[in-house]
């Protein structure tokens, strides 16, 4: 699905990712954990195509396509989805209208016909129920006046609508109370198939009680320094990130 090889990225001349390797296959859920400043959000940003980051080395193969030269929107049309840590409020742009435009651009890219208004609306009803998002929220301006939990549920709702093959959840658990966390996790679990994959970026182990990862990786100082199964997350939670820091040669 995605193969990241020796990825180096910097922002304003400061190296953040320093040789990251990661392979994710269809049907897998990977969790990337790590202390603050390790480069977790940078990885999400670089994969989504944020232009402030400079890729200095390495390559990323996404489903047979060289990902790095693609623009943000081309990546999305190829089936990459980023659930934002801080979803943006866009006053005046309707959630529904923009999603329909996005969905049609993605379908057009795949050589499919645009979705009819009727089919689109029934899709909205089905997918908003999945994350228990009030359909009134779905038709409001993008994230405007949404609570923190509603914003995150809206991210998963969009993910459900666009049906990506690889979803990257960037700190989706941050700021969520336990009920919202359960709803979001439930949505992600229901969307999982053997055709798609998920990368969960998180600081805490908590989310992984609800979404069981196949692999857990520890990102530290721009590299993956330790990989393992779901038990690695528990071990990290118990021993703290100092355990990694103290065992990583500089």
């Amino acid at each position, binding site marked *: 699905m995605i193969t990241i090889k020796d990825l180096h990225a910097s922002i304003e001349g400061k190296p953040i990712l320093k040789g990251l390797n990661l392979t994710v296959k269809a049907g897998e859920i990977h969790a990337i954990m790590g202390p603050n400043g390790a480069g977790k959000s940078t990885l999400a940003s670089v994969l989504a195509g944020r232009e402030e980051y400079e890729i200095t080395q390495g390559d990323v193969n996404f489903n047979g396509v060289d990902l790095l030269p693609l623009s943000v929107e081309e990546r*999305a049309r190829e089936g990459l989805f*980023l659930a934002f840590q801080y979803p943006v409020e866009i006053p005046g742009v309707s959630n529904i209208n923009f999603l329909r*435009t*996005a969905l049609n651009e*993605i379908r057009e890219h795949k050589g499919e016909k645009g979705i009819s208004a009727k089919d689109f609306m029934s899709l909205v009803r089905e997918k908003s129920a999945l994350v228990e998002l009030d359909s009134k929220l779905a038709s409001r301006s993008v994230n405007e006046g949404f609570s923190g939990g509603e914003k995150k549920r809206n991210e998963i709702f969009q993910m459900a609508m666009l049906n990506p093959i690889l979803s990257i959840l960037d700190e989706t658990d941050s700021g969520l109370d336990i009920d919202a966390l359960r709803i979001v996790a439930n949505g992600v679990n229901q969307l999982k198939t053997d055709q798609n994959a998920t990368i969960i970026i998180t600081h805490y182990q908590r989310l992984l009680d609800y979404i069981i990862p196949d692999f857990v990786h520890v990102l530290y100082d721009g590299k993956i320094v330790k990989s393992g199964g779901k038990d690695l997350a528990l071990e990290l939670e118990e021993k703290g990130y100092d355990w990694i820091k103290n065992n990583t040669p500089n």
Partner: protein
Amino acid sequence: MEPVTKATLQVFRKKLSPAKLLLPSSFIDANEKELIEMDFPNSRQEAWKYTRLNRVAKINLESTPSSIIDWSSYLMVKDAYNFVFQNTECIYKSPDLPKGVSIKIGEQIGATDWLSSINEGHVAKLNVAHAQNGCVINISDGVQVDKPIQLIFISDGPKQPNFWRNQLQHGNGAKADIHVGYFSKDAIDSYSNVHWSVFLKENSHLIMTKIQNDGDANYHFSTENISQLKDSNFTLNTLTLDGSFVRNDVLVKVEGENCETHLNGAYIMKENQHVDNHTTVDHIFPNCNSYELYKGVMDDKSTAVFNGKVFVRPNAQKINAFQSNANVLLSNDAAVNSKPELEIYADDVKCSHGSTTGQLDEEAIFYLRSRGISEAAARQLVVAAFMQDVFLKVASNDLKSYIYQQLAVRFDLYLQDKD
């Protein structure tokens, strides 16, 4: 050597034809005498501080024969009572009009058809001196016009001068939606000067939406003088979608109680374009509300001026006057000069004004793109969202679609320009 100052306006007028419209002597008598004493204002004059007329003063205007055009391609909405002017000619007149509506064009207009008129400043005076064509619209008492009346003015050819003069008398209790469109074709250093006098009688309701879509190098000067009698409701939407140089002067005299006045404006400028909106709302009577909302999106080295004046006269108590101007700059070289002016002589009024200038939210654009939407479409969505509260004031849905369609064209072109 530069010519001595007084000569400039006279040099500019040299090849202009005298007025072809028959105007009352009360308009003309003093006008020529005053005009001869005048020159183009310079930037020391407050009303022209940020709008330099040097380039206008230097152009050599000369009437050229009009080309053959497909006037129907200029119609902004199809279902309307249409009138199309191309330079000095009226090339299309709606064959039918609803009962109670009369529209006289050019030679049909007699001197007595013109009501009183305010002609201050060189723009309005030039219009009196050189008015070539235009219309006088009368909407009788109680008439509700079923479809928009749509007037299209096309400036055709390089160095082409155009002076159009129009009047609208809106009867007691009448209701209408007027669309006015300004376009240019093959304009290079062309000059349009259009004047409107609008009289709203008691309890009448009027929406005027003005689309300025001069694509080429046309200097466009537009003056609207509006008079509102009691219980009337007036809306003017000024949408400047394209145009290298646009100056709008709007004066609304609220001459009766219980009136409502809405002035809305949107301007979307690029390259070296310049737009200047000067508005004045003069509250002479108590118990009235006025609302003013102007929004702009500025790219490249474009510049905009907003100057909104509100007068509240001593006896005009219980006035609510709100004014807002918001701008988005898409480039570091674009600039906006925004100036609200309130002059309040009554003591029981509520007036507010606000002005903001900022940038397009790049994070919002990234968010939309990350969902698969192209950069052009994302920019257009965010710009349209910013402008939305102005566009929503346009009454006709057909005209709204026209505006959004123009916006789409504009933002696709915008990206191609950059590549």
